[in-house]
């Protein structure tokens, strides 16, 4: 018998978690958009809309302090950031294209050197994913191996049912714990029919073939044709669930300052600029190529994963309408 939770109880679950001093993050209305933000109660949860930014920022914030420095009696001291006090967190209502992102990013933040900022948050987080019931023509999760009902990355996965309640599937131990700790909100029972899932209108891509094409098309007119239009902003990267490039900068003075890590984007002209002025990716052509290569080849070469969940955010956000779904389709066709 599956576990069932009603929508009212799902909101009560949020109330309980907040009372337990957990950081509860979920889709919430924020002015003209929905964002993954801390929820102060169950009523805050806004389901049924894709938040403008992905949920990666729960683990990999837009900007975070990584150390502070300063002088005490003329002596330079460096202070670590207290990561042990990062709160226990529950990400609730993450759509599959967002819930899946940490399991992609774990690899890069833990190969050889552990980025404890990311990993500590990850360790202390439980992800409650939810199957997706609405999409638009920018969505292409099914094309890149995800699905509106893909539980990948979720600890607990909710499937909306026709009667307004949710079937709960504990995917991991963390998910099981969340359910058992709040057993009264869940009940065992026969599930009603599942609500109709979103059905993105895209053909499945052959990612292996696309990668093969990328292996042999480092030089290709395709890159130039995109670069002609691309403005070199970072909108696509910043709202992407999988993009993880960052910059590190000092702010303040030698006497009192903070070193911060914050999002960066490979599309920016200065991203790879050497202090000497030499720039290996000096033109947009090379920068956009790096974006596609990193997502569909380099990351796979290194970590065996594709750096894309098909959420379509970059397509919606691109000021000049660059459509990664279209680009991948073209490559897929060319790759035969």
């Amino acid at each position: 018998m599956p576990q069932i939770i009603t929508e009212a109880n799902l909101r009560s679950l949020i109330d309980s978690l907040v009372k337990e001093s957990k950081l509860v993050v979920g889709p919430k209305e924020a002015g003209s958009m929905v964002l993954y933000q801390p929820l102060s109660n169950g009523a805050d949860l806004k389901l049924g809309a894709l938040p403008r930014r992905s949920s990666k920022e729960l683990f990999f914030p837009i900007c975070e302090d990584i150390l502070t420095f300063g002088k005490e009696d003329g002596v330079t001291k460096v202070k670590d950031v207290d990561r042990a006090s990062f709160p226990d967190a529950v990400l609730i209502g993450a759509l599959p294209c967002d819930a899946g992102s940490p399991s992609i990013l774990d690899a890069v933040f833990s190969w050889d050197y552990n980025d404890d900022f990311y990993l500590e948050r990850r360790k202390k987080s439980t992800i409650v994913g939810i199957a997706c019931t609405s999409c638009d023509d920018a969505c292409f999760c099914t094309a890149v191996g995800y699905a509106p009902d893909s539980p990948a990355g979720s600890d607990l996965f909710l499937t909306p049912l026709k009667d307004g309640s949710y079937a709960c599937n504990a995917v991991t131990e963390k998910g099981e714990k969340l359910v058992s700790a709040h057993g009264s909100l869940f009940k065992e029972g026969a599930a009603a029919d599942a609500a109709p899932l979103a059905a993105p209108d895209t053909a499945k891509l052959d990612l292996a073939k696309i990668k093969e094409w990328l292996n042999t098309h480092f030089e290709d007119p395709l890159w130039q044709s995109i670069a002609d239009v691309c403005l070199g902003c970072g909108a696509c990267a910043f709202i992407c669930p999988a993009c993880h490039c960052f910059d590190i900068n000092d702010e303040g003075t030698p006497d009192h300052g903070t070193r911060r890590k914050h999002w960066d984007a490979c599309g920016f002209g200065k991203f790879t600029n050497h202090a000497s002025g030499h720039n290996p990716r000096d033109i947009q052509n090379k920068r956009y190529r790096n974006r596609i290569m990193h997502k569909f080849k380099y990351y796979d070469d290194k970590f065996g994963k594709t750096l894309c969940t098909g959420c379509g955010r970059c397509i919606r956000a691109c000021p000049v309408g660059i459509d990664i779904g279209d680009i991948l389709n073209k490559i897929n066709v060319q790759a035969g």
Partner: protein
Amino acid sequence: MCQSKNIYLPNLATIEAIVDETPDVRTFRLVFQDENVRENFSFRAGQFAEYSAFGAGESTFCIASAPTRKGYIECCFRSVGRVTEELRRLEVGDTIGVRGPYGNSFPIEDFYGKNLVFVAGGIALPPLRTVIWNCLDLRDKFGDITIVYGARSEADLVYKRELAEWQERSDVRLVKCVDPGGNGPGFDGKVGFVPSVLEEAAPSAENTIALVCGPPIMIKFTLPVLERLGFTDDAIYTTLENRMKCGVGKCGRCNVGNVYVCKDGPVFTAGQVKAMSQEF
């Protein structure tokens, strides 16, 4: 506070000595402030570190001293950016941050019993100087050692006192050069570009490893010379530099194709470099 290591947290080091190599290139001799770090810090020739000028940020340079010399490390930098300009303002006794050592290294043990040819240009001598002293400190393990080093002008030659020392030594062949027009009266080296001076010096490729480091244009013209001299791609080593921030394979900017220079490099054979996506 019990937590795992913050990979971005530098060790503090005191500037023990400053040497001006050229008008804009400076060497720092650094001693770690923490006794434990001072005693246990070890690295291999070719590895790099992230050096902090607090308030300005971090900059990436190789560790320019030899791993065989204990108790301190040296770095050498040109003031060209925000961090290096701030570093330049620091004085003996001041504190900087050092994260590292990072990256791979020259496989020195594989070079035992072989002749070595070092080819360097301009400010790219420091990444080879660590190897040169490493090898000279273990002199009997190697055959002939040839150093071809050039800069734009006499003033731009770094490590001048060490060049003089190498010139004196009978167990090192130093061929020093400056670009045409860069020589003053009484310059005792050759006049010409590094690749052509190398070709003229014509070191034998027999049982020899070449270690090359310099600006991209020098590398471009040096590799064909080495090829003509009979060096195979796997007998030529170089070290790549790219803009880095994290130094530990996360931040995403130093990659050349799928190769992360900070983790997979910075030391590569010519064969490995040729196999990379050509985006330098």
